[in-house]
C-alpha cells in the first residue's frame, strides 16, 4: 500500500488513542481534585507534566488549575496534543485515506470530531467536564471496535493497530511515572532512597490504576494495592490490554504480519528495535526494575526513549520510501503525523 496511506492510518489511530488517554487521566485528576487529597496546584501541574508539554503550557498560563489545565489539554488548538487537536488531525488523516477505511469508521470518526468536539470550544462552556471526558473515551473505544469489526484485518488494519498500541504503551508508562510528576524530589521513592512499599503512601496508587482503566483487572490479579504490584501490573502484565508488555507483544505481532517476518529474527530497523524491546519485557522482573539505581522513573524514561526509537524506525522502514542509495529533494510530506 502507499506509504502515505499507511502513515495516515498509523497516525490516525495514535491520535485517537492519545485523545482517549488524555481524557482518562484528566478524569482521574478531576476525581482526586474533588476530594482535595493534594494541593490543587501540584495536582494539576502534575497532570500537565504527565504528557510532557509543560514548557508549552507555562508559556501561555501563569497558573495550573482545573480550568487552565483542562483548557490546555482538551480544547487548546495551539497545543498539538490537546484532545481537539488530536481529533482534528485524526479526522484530516481519515479524510485523506477515505477510500481505504470502511464507511462505518469514517462515519464514527467524523461524528466523534463534529459532535464531541465541534460544539464545545472551552472549559467555560462545559456544563460537566466529566461528561465530556467520558464522551471522548467512549467515542475512541467505539472507533476501535468499529475498526476491528468492519475493516479487513490486512496490512492497513495492522498499521492501525500498531499505531494504537505504541501510543498506548507510551501513555500507560507516563501515567505510571506519577511519583516523578506529583511528588517533590525529596519524597520520591526509588531515586536515592530505597523504594517504599507502604500500603498507604503519599501516592494514591488506586488513582493510577484508574487512569489506565486498570483498577478492576488489577484487583482480580493482585487484590490489595501496593506500589510494586501496580508497577508490575501496568508494565509487565501479559494479558491486560493497557499494560506495556501486552501492547509491545501485539504491536510486534502486527509489525510481523505487515512484513511477513518471524519473531526472533529481523530484516529491518523496525523489526529489530521492536523485537528487542519486546524481548526485554519478556524476561523483565519488577523487583529488578525497582531495585536498580535508576529506579522506576529511570526505567520508564528509557522505555519511552526506546519506544520513540521504534516508532522512528517504523517511519524510516515504511513511510520514508526513497530510491536506495540516493537521496532526493522532494516535497515536504503532507501528513498530520509528528514524531513525539
Amino acid at each position, binding site marked *: 500500500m502507499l506509504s502515505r496511506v499507511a502513515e495516515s492510518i498509523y497516525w490516525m489511530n495514535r491520535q485517537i488513542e492519545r485523545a482517549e488517554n488524555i481524557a482518562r487521566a484528566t478524569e482521574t485528576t478531576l476525581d482526586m481534585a474533588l476530594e482535595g487529597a493534594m494541593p490543587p496546584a501540584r495536582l494539576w501541574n502534575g497532570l500537565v507534566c504527565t504528557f510532557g508539554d509543560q514548557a508549552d503550557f507555562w508559556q501561555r498560563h501563569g497558573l495550573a488549575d482545573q480550568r487552565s489545565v483542562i483548557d490546555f489539554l482538551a480544547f487548546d488548538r495551539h497545543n498539538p496534543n490537546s484532545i481537539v487537536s488530536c481529533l482534528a488531525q485524526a479526522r484530516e488523516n481519515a479524510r485523506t485515506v477515505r477510500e481505504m477505511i470502511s464507511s462505518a469508521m469514517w462515519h464514527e470518526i467524523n461524528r466523534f470530531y463534529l459532535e464531541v468536539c465541534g460544539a464545545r470550544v472551552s472549559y467555560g462552556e462545559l456544563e460537566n467536564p466529566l461528561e465530556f471526558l467520558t464522551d471522548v473515551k467512549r467515542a475512541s473505544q467505539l472507533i476501535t471496535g468499529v475498526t476491528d469489526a468492519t475493516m479487513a484485518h490486512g496490512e492497513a488494519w495492522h498499521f492501525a493497530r500498531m499505531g494504537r498500541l505504541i501510543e498506548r504503551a507510551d501513555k500507560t508508562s507516563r501515567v505510571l511515572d506519577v511519583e516523578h510528576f506529583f511528588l517533590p524530589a525529596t519524597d520520591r521513592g526509588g531515586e536515592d532512597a530505597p523504594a517504599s512499599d507502604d500500603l498507604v503512601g503519599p501516592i494514591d496508587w488506586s488513582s493510577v490504576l484508574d487512569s489506565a482503566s486498570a483498577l478492576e483487572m488489577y484487583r482480580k490479579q493482585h487484590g490489595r494495592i501496593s506500589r510494586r504490584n501496580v508497577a508490575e501490573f501496568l508494565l509487565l502484565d501479559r494479558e491486560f490490554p493497557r499494560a506495556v508488555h501486552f501492547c509491545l507483544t501485539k504491536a510486534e505481532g502486527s509489525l510481523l504480519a505487515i512484513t511477513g517476518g518471524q519473531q526472533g529474527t529481523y530484516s529491518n530497523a523496525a523489526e529489530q528495535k521492536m523485537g528487542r524491546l519486546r524481548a526485554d519485557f519478556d524476561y523483565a522482573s519488577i523487583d529488578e526494575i525497582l531495585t536498580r539505581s535508576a529506579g522506576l522513573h529511570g526505567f520508564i524514561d528509557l522505555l519511552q526513549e526506546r519506544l520513540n526509537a521504534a516508532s522512528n524506525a517504523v517511519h524510516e522502514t515504511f513511510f520514508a520510501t526513497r530510491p536506495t542509495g540516493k537521496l532526493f529533494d522532494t516535497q515536504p510530506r*503532507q501528513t498530520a503525523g509528528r514524531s513525539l
Partner: protein
Amino acid sequence: MNLTAYQTDGFWDELFEPDLRPRAAAELLVKRLGEFSPGELAARQKAADKMLLTMGITFNVYGHAAGMEKVWPFDIVPRVIDAAEWSTIERGLTQRIQALNLFIDDVYNRRLIVKDRVVPEWLVDSGRCFRGPCAGMQPPQGVWCHITGTDLVRGGDGQMYVLEDNLRTPSGVSYVIENREVMKRTFPQVFGGQRISPVEDYPEKLLAMLQFIAPAAARDPTVVVLTPGIYNSAYFEHCFLARQMGVELVQGSDLIVHNDVVFMRTTRGLERVDVIYRRIDDDFLDPLVFRDDSVVGVPGLMAAYRAGNVALVNAPGTGIADDKAVYAFVPEIIRYYLGEDAILPNVPTYVCGDDLQRQHVLDRLDELVVKPANESGGYGIVLGPRVSQAERDDCRERIKANPRNFIAQPMLSLSRVPTVVGDSLEGRHVDLRPFILYGEEIHVLPGGLTRVALVKDSLVVNSSQGGGSKDTWVVHTNRG
C-alpha cells in the same frame, strides 16, 4: 398528485409540451408522478437528501474555511432525453471531440490550421492555457483529450447548443453515477416499465481507456489517480473514481521521478507507475517546468512524460481547446479537419480580442453575457441584462484592459425541468454536461450531469453558486 397546476411559463420544458401534454419519452414518468399521494413527493425528496448526507457525497466550496464540505443538492425529478435525440447529441459530441483532438495535436506540432488562416495565430499563442513546453509532443496513441465534459444548453427554440468545452480536468461524473444510485433506492417506482440507458459502467470504461493509452512497454499497466488533496473541491470525486476503478489515489508527494521513470512510494518500496489520471491543472503538474511554487505536483514528471515513460490524462496542453475564444472557432475547426458541418451548433459568440467584435460587445453590454475566456465553475460571468449599470461599467473597463480574455454571447433562455418545491413542482433552468472518453474509440456516457439552478428564475447552475443536480435519463421509447 395534481399536475394541472404546473406551468411552463413560456419556456421550453424538458418534460412537457407547450400544451402541457407530457413529451413522449417522459410519458411514463409523468404518469407515475401523477399517481403520487399528497406529501409523497416531499417525503421522497427528504429521503434522498438524507441518503446523500449519510453517503457523504460532498464537494468543497472555495472561499470558505478550509475543508468546508457541503452536500450537493439533488432534485429527485429526473431530466428525460429521448433516445432518438440522444443519438444525434452523441454523434455531435463524437465529431466535436475528434476535431478538437486533431486541433490540439496540430497547434503543438505542424500548425497547419494557423498557416491556413482558419484560426488566427495570435489567438492560439496568447491563450492562457497554451503550453509552450508541449510543442512537439506526441502523446501515446495520438490522444490528447481523453476525458471531456462538454456543456450543452437548450434554447427557447428547442435546439441543443454547445455552451463550452471542458478539456482540462472536467468534474461531475461521480455525481452522475451516485445520482442514479440514489434515485434507484429512494424512487424505485418511477423506473418501472421503461428502458433507460445505464450509467454505472463508466468506471469500467474509464479504466479500459486508461490502460489502453499506457506506454507500449507496460504489459500490465499500473494506473493511478493524482489528486491535489482533501481541500480540492472535487476530492470526493477523486476518491470515488479511484475506489470504483480499484486503483491507488495518490498525491504529488506519493510520486517520485527517478531516471525519467515515475514511481509511487509504498510500504514495500517503490512501485512503477505507467498511467496518471491527474486531477491537477497543468500549471501545478511539475514545478520544474510549470509553476515552480507548486507543492501538489511532481518534480520531473514532464521529463518522464516526454521520454514516453508515463501517460498523462488529459495530456498537458489540452487547455488551449478549452479556451472560450477558441470555442468560437470550433465550427470552422470541425470543417477544417473533418470536412463536415458541426452537428451541434455553437451559441453565437463574440471574441473581444477582435476589434470589430469587441466594439459590438461594448455597444450591447446590456443585452449580452460576458465570460472570461479561461475560468471555470461559473466564476467571473456577467449577465448584462441582470446587473447594475455600475457592474456593466466595471465589466467594460475589464474588457478594455484585457480584451483577449473575454467573450460575449446573447442571453439564452435556458430550458426548464419540473423541480421539487415543497410538495409540488415548479420549472427550473438546467444545463447538461455529457462526459466523453477518448481511448481506443470515442465513448459518450449516456445522459450526463444535469445541473439545475434551484433558485427561481436563476440561470446559474454551478455547484459553487446555488446549483443542484438531477438524474438524467436517456429513455428508449417504443417508436423505433
